[in-house]
């Protein structure tokens, strides 16, 4: 465990916690993009450069902008009223989340001494990733392309105005 690991872990967890806890939704979007950036740094640290930069582009770039747009379009940026920002059943949710955390944490701590650990750095070039995507993983790639097209059309149709439907 290096010093960098602890710094990035603190950054990521602080971003995630404040995204969940803050009151103003715009601040939440900012905090969650910090958490996404911290995860991208984790990927870079784990020698998965391609996935790290894809994470930067997709999450810190696209998803954060999308979240900000949704917040502004639903007037979520207005300062929340005196009503609670948490649901009425927040205690149950917190208990479930704590239990869900306890199980894998216990399992990881139990299994830590026997864990696999390959020390040598995997030398993966982007060319190899491209070859794998065009060779062994070409069918999943095509399915993802279809899914992204369907999601694009679906999101536009769902969020579109429905004036014609209301008039008829």
């Amino acid at each position, binding site marked *: 465990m290096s010093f960098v690991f602890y710094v990035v872990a603190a950054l990521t967890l602080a971003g995630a916690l404040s*995204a969940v806890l803050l009151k103003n939704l715009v601040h939440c979007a900012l905090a969650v993009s910090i958490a996404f950036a911290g995860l991208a740094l984790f990927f870079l640290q784990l020698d998965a450069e391609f996935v790290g930069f894809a994470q930067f582009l*997709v999450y810190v770039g696209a998803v954060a902008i999308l979240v900000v747009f949704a917040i502004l379009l639903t007037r979520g940026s207005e300062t929340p009223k005196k009503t609670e920002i948490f649901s009425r059943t927040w205690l149950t949710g917190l208990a479930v989340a704590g239990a869900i955390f306890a199980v894998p944490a216990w399992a*990881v701590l139990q299994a*830590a001494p026997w864990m696999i650990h390959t020390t040598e750095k995997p030398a993966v070039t982007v060319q190899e990733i491209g070859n794998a995507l065009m060779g062994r993983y070409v069918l999943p790639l095509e399915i*993802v392309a279809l899914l992204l097209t369907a999601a694009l059309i679906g*999101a536009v149709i769902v*969020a579109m105005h429905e004036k014609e439907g209301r008039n008829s």
Partner: protein
Amino acid sequence: MISATPLAGYLLIAALLFAIGLAGALTRRNAILVLIGIELMLNAANLNLIAFWRFGEHPEALTGLMFAIFSIAVAAAEAAVGLGLVISIHRHLRTADLDQINRMKG
């Protein structure tokens, strides 16, 4: 113990992130914050995949890496459709508060 195996540290961070995301998705009232919690959970799963790929037996097979790439693509599609749904619900009901959206309650 943890310092001997970096994999355990990454797995613990991922479990913590997953729990934070789940707590956010279960306790927040605003629908957008619930989606943010779901995104955090998906990212925690991606961190697990990459960590197992890095410290696993055959990193040259690229399995965990590919899984993470496809997972990122699917998560992006999910975010787009989910936020479109939130905007549509807000247009119909004038609210994004999940405690007030109970039209389908029997």
